[in-house]
């Protein structure tokens, strides 16, 4: 049986599934239930500095994007950091760590951007026995307007500075949580590394308005007839998060920095994808808020089965395994070619592949054959774009078949397995100017 335990920048947990800093980890009651359900760790909901706690709205805090059958595609929220007194949280963290010594408890922190403020809170957190801290540089609403959260995370110099303060004033591992509301996520990641961060976690929520109430003409959710943007999370953000994780994992400047992957993880498969792109642990919130804590049991057993099937005995056997296969567009092989192929036995003849290709792409799929509905790829027109396979309602009905040692009937070019990328391509004006240099840079 595969061993799911992880040691993430010195923080140990029996499995890589952590609950992200969010409502599910706001207090001992929830965390107790989470650990009983099997979660390997929690990142405690963000603590602020001593004093009167923040005040949340007493109206709706969540907006939602529904898919078919009211499946939740995404949430956004306008909740702030914990609105409970600091001391209460610290006591409960202490108690939980004592009761669950084998689980990871990481404490999320957000205090003003002053060294003294961090200096005051760090020893008190350390005293709880928590395994590490996560710096909340991502919260996009409410706190950012007060110079915290994303306001720090969007300025790499501040990220570096605060990280350094934390490393200076604490022995605990420091995880820097990154905001996606930025042009190039590698910059704050590099800053965190320079500041001495032990790891980064990403992504925090994305600035968003999930929809508009067309009766009231107010975006959702609204509080007393006004609305504000919130932070978006859930399955819809996963592709954005995967890309950002991969960018950090493959960037020479940050390669090797431990990553805790966050963003739309609902199943073991989602988790495994983040891990393949370099995440040593994953953090979950939305899926738990939709289905409850029990989903971790599916995740644990699913990941175990996956690892057993593939012969991975420990998590680190496949963490980052897909990173070498992520590259820049210019290094993709332009000599490679595929053609769509429709399995006529599986085809239910809905015709969507035809109309998608006909209306919006390359007119490469038939509609009729001898007067009868019949959907077949026209190799002379097919560019291999994958649109038909992507929108086909039947799994594996349309597959993309690579050409090998045969002529591409669209281009008339022999596909022989040779490689030619854009940096080498004769159509590239820069190649024409100076005969090329590099192949893909070494990792």
């Amino acid at each position, binding site marked *: 049986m595969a061993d799911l335990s992880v040691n993430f920048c010195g923080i140990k947990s029996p499995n890589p599934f952590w609950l992200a800093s969010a409502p599910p980890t706001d207090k001992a009651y929830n965390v107790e239930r989470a650990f009983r359900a099997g979660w390997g760790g929690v990142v405690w909901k963000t603590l602020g500095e001593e004093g009167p706690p923040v005040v949340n709205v007493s109206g709706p805090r969540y907006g939602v994007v529904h898919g078919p*059958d009211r499946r939740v595609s995404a949430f956004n929220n306008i909740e702030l950091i914990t609105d409970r007194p600091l001391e209460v949280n610290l006591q409960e963290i202490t108690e939980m760590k004592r009761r669950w010594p084998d689980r990871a408890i990481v404490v999320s922190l957000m205090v003003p951007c002053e060294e003294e403020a961090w200096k005051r809170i760090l020893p008190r957190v350390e005293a709880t026995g928590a395994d590490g801290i996560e710096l909340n540089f991502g919260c996009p609403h409410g706190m950012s307007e007060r110079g915290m959260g994303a306001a720090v995370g969007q300025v790499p110099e501040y990220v570096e500075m605060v990280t350094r303060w934390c490393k200076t004033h604490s022995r605990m591992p420091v995880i820097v949580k990154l905001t996606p509301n930025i042009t190039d996520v590698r910059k704050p990641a590099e800053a965190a590394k320079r500041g001495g961060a032990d790891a980064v976690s990403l992504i925090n929520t994305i600035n968003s308005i999930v929809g508009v109430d067309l009766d009231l003409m107010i975006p959702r959710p609204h509080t007393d007839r006004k609305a504000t943007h919130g932070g978006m999370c859930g399955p819809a953000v996963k592709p954005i998060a995967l890309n950002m994780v991969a960018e950090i994992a493959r960037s020479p400047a940050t390669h090797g920095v431990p990553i805790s992957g966050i963003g739309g993880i609902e199943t073991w498969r989602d988790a495994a994808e983040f891990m393949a792109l370099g995440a040593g642990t994953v953090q979950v919130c939305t899926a738990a808020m939709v289905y409850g804590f029990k989903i971790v049991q599916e995740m644990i057993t699913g990941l175990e089965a996956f690892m057993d099937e593939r012969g991975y005995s420990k998590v680190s056997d496949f963490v980052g395994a897909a990173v070498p296969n992520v590259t820049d567009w210019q290094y993709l092989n332009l000599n490679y070619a595929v053609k769509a192929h429709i399995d006529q036995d599986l085809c239910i*003849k*809905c*015709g969507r592949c*035809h109309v998608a290709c006909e209306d919006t792409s390359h007119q490469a799929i038939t*509609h009729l054959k001898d007067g009868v*509905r019949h959907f077949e790829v026209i190799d002379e027109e097919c560019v291999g774009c994958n649109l038909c396979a992507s929108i086909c309602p039947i799994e594996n009905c349309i597959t993309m078949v690579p050409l090998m040692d045969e002529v591409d009937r669209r281009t008339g070019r022999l596909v022989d397995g040779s490689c030619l990328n854009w940096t080498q391509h004769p159509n590239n004006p820069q190649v024409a100017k100076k005969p090329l240099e590099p192949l893909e840079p070494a990792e």
Partner: protein
Amino acid sequence: MSSAPDIRGGRLPSGDYCNAFSDLHAPLDAHEARVAAERCLFCYDAPCVTACPTSIDIPLFIRQIATGNATGAGKTILDSNIFGGMCARVCPTETLCEQACVRNEAEGKPVIIGQLQRHATDAIMASGRQLYKHGAPNGRRIAVVGAGPAGLSCAHKLATLGYDVVVFDKRQKAGGLNEHGIASYKSTNNFAQAEVDWILSIGGIELRCDQALGHDFTLADLRRDFDAVFLGLGLQAANSLGIDAGELRGIEDAVAFIEALRQSADLSKLPIGRRVVVIGGGMTAVDAAVQAKKLGAEEVTIVYRRGAEQMGASRYEQELALTGGVVVRHWARPVAVHGESGVLRSVIFAATAERDGRLVDTGETFELQADQLFKAIGQLFVPQVLEGSSEVLDLDRGRIAVDADRRTSLPDVWAGGDCVAGGRDLTVVAVEDGKQAALSIDRTLQGFVPMAAE
């Protein structure tokens, strides 16, 4: 007939009638409709549309339901089929749109198009909104004979195009078989009349009831007084069993029984036998049998001369009969009836079989006790209604011959619905006939010159 001792009303406790004849399907609520609608794949050149005789844009109306626009969905339906509400209730969808649904290939279960259609058309009816209006009057007058689905579909389309239409019907009420010939549990809450009222409310249509062709007026009268005539006459007579029943009470037409039931103000007063036999294998047989059972008959048996596969009633309808407690016996035909004191007592059947493609008696017989027998073996078009015309309408296999435009052999007379040859005796086909005839009448009267053959 009610004097026969075992044929009487009040077989159910009085409070039970309402329940027994309640809606066959509870209407979908908004959530159910949305979940069902989301199964639609929005097919290109969708097979369900091809399968619909009125070519309703089914993927579009279902997508409109899925996006919370049920009234828009209703309009999409009614634009193609003004009787979309009734068709949602009575269409054999399992042999039309739902049979063609590609979800059958994927999961063996189609999108429930019929129920979704009802959801959308009910939304229109509930809104009380009228979607259509009498077109700018063009001064032309059209006569429509028969206020059933074919006639009213034709009249409605013509009215929207600016014609003044007079609709004649021999019955007291408009609606044709929608009102008189369909099981009441398929059209509850007086839906058929509400739908007719809604259709007629656009203006430009004058309804004249109690006016029978061949009795109160002739086709020649109409041809003289109107610019064009549409005949949606339906069928007038039931086929004969071909056995000598003498004067026995208790032998009735299923169609007449259903009509009496539909028009009954108090079902507890409607007489029904204790042991009922229905002869036939179509929708009418099932409608009569199931309703006889619902009225409290103890034993109801459908007897059909061939097998289940050959029955005109769809598989779904056959199951409806079986789950409703009706016994279905295949491969037998009635050969004699027995009575006592002028009252039916039993029916003698000969067992049948198919040999070399022909139906033959096997030589075995059996007897079913019965105090009421309903004939549901099809209806006939009676051409005598057309008498009195100076010219003669061509018939084809006993019904009115029409071309693809529903034009008869007379240049100013169109026809549609059950009275024309080659139809499928379905409401939805009648609606399409009326619509196509209206469009053809308009093309003809507006001097539209057809393009050279394409």
